[in-house]
């Protein structure tokens, strides 16, 4: 075992990343973001790359918010489980999680009615439907709702009779009536004010949760008389924050991604999204740790053992992701219910099929085998490519969760894809949001010590052995 770290090895006032190390990457990311934001403004308004830019933006937003949400998760989990191993890297988790509240900036374009009309059909028809079935004082006409469902049913049956038993697709009017009644039934949840309230609530609630955990942790760094009080306080507080995280992460997936097709629902969608959050934010944490160590930080407190544990957690979440996403697929495939299968039918059609299939091997089988040996997890030259690979597959995973909806929604089912230039928009949005994410993350890293140097368990973590 290496030298036993004692309090003499740690600088009294902790270790801070020199601003010279951060200045250049921060500047680059800021420039990319500003350029991208200007470009996005024109792409949203002028539709240079076609109508699909809203989807590009939503995809980029979901990708980077999943990483920030994962940071919130690992911070809260670390505190709620009273963990000692990760105190050395906990500040990285806090910094990553604290990007979350700033992601609200990226959510602003999603509040524009024109963007919402592209993304969420139900918002477009919401007011129309609401005026039909809901009174001004907010009560839903139960009778009317039943009536419209019955009418839709009868119209369908009548149409069939005319054709003498041969099955024909329902005509456009019947379809519309059926969908509107479906939306009216769901309108207590899927209405604009409530949706907006939820989105604001997500950022306020979990934003406060991660802010307070990071704040208390940073205050400890300069406390001349550090005690266990903050440790115990955070442990208690994190018990309240954990359920908040669970609800927020689930409903972000539901309200931004599942809402793309209001007819479709899956109770596993939230946990599916969460699995991606936890897995890939751990990849980001490992990459950040490696970057900071290559610059000479975190040398005394973090070691191979931390890499080993973080790699093991990542491995666990590779399996968890596969478990959840497969369960979702298999239950829907097995039950074969029309409303549920649409999601997978769309993603198994045309060019999407190959990508969907590749998730099985690329997102699960290969990383599962790669991460099995302990030396892969402990050695940076092995684990860094694996982390980058996993992030690349997270890109594909979310891409085929969001983007297939673009073609069918914007062309009203005529085509799987919109114009091919829409892919350029995906790239612009990804780099714009990515630059913002990187800038905020670097800002968080620079604004506090690299590790909680006065935490009562920093030495326990520095001398970690597993």
């Amino acid at each position, binding site marked *: *075992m290496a030298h036993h770290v004692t309090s003499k090895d740690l600088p009294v006032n902790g270790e801070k990343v020199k601003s010279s190390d951060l200045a250049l990457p921060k500047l680059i990311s800021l420039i990319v973001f500003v350029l991208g934001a200007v470009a996005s403004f024109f792409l949203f308004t002028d539709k240079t790359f076609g109508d699909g830019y809203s989807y590009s933006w939503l995809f980029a937003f979901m990708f980077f918010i999943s990483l920030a949400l994962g940071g919130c998760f690992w911070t809260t989990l670390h505190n709620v489980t009273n963990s000692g191993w990760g105190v050395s890297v906990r500040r990285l988790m806090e910094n990553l999680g604290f990007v979350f509240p700033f992601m609200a900036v990226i959510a602003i374009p999603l509040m524009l009615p024109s963007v919402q009309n592209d993304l969420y059909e139900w918002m477009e028809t919401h007011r129309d439907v609401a005026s039909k079935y809901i009174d001004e004082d907010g009560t839903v006409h139960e009778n009317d709702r039943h009536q419209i469902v019955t009418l839709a049913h009868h119209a369908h049956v009548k149409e069939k009779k005319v054709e003498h038993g041969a099955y024909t697709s329902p005509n456009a009017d019947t379809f519309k009536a059926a969908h509107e009644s479906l939306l009216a039934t769901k309108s207590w949840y899927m209405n604009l004010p409530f949706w907006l309230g939820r989105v604001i609530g997500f950022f306020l609630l979990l934003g406060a949760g991660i802010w307070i955990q990071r704040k208390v942790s940073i205050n400890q760094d300069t406390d001349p008389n550090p005690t266990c009080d903050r440790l115990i306080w955070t442990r208690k507080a994190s018990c309240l924050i954990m359920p908040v995280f669970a609800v927020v992460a689930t409903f972000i997936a539901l309200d931004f991604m599942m809402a793309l097709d209001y007819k479709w629902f899956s109770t596993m969608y939230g946990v599916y999204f969460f699995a991606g959050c936890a897995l890939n934010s751990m990849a980001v944490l490992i990459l950040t740790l490696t970057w900071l160590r290559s610059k000479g930080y975190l040398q005394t407190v973090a070691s191979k053992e931390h890499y080993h544990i973080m790699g093991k957690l990542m491995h666990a979440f590779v399996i968890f992701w596969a478990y959840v996403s*497969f369960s979702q697929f298999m239950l829907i*495939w097995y039950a*074969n219910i029309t409303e549920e299968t649409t999601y997978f039918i769309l993603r198994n059609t045309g060019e999407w099929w190959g990508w969907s299939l590749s998730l099985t091997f690329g997102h699960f089988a290969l990383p599962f085998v790669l991460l099995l040996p302990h030396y892969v997890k402990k050695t940076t030259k092995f684990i860094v490519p694996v982390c980058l690979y996993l992030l690349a597959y997270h890109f594909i995973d979310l891409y085929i969760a969001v983007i297939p909806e673009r073609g069918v929604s914007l062309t009203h089912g005529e085509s799987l894809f919109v114009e091919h230039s829409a892919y350029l928009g995906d790239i612009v949005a990804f780099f714009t949001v990515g630059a913002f994410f990187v800038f905020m993350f670097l800002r968080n890293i620079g604004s506090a010590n690299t590790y909680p140097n006065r935490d009562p368990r920093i030495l326990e973590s520095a001398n970690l052995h597993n």
Partner: protein
Amino acid sequence: MSTSVKRVYGYLAEFESASALYKGAEKVRDAGFKKWDCYSPYPIHGMDDAMGMRRSILPYFVFFGGSTGLLTGFSLAYITQVMIYPTVVQAKPANIFTTSAFFPIMFELTILFSGFTVLFCLLGLMGLPRLNHPLFASRQFHRATDDGFFIAVEARDPNFSPEDTKELLAAAGGTNIELVEEED
């Protein structure tokens, strides 16, 4: 008058505490012994390193055990559901893609075979089950399950010598050093 042949098993030395055992183990390790072991009432953190133990080869067995389970599950599903007796449900196709319905079986068989491999290979590598152990001949050794910390160096180790090993154990902090003999 009967005579019985006895075979020397090795030296058994008692240590005062877990930390004395740990430091003693490092000395025995550095002396280059391979056939020896530490005995304590509870697991001691970092003892593997102090004893210079290499990683177990068990994971490799388990990998192949698990792979066998996966292949068994796949064959079972594919042969029965695609080749021999295709069951058509809800007009779903009976081909290689049907196997997604049988992923749980493949998964469970992977776990089951891995579990079996762990259990039986572990027992095999440890040489269990066995009816007796030569160290049970020592009276003081019974305390290993209560409050005793012991190191036993076996006579089969090529570095073993009747005098030097005893001195080494004494120098490492061992007391009550005893030559354990087994009945042949």
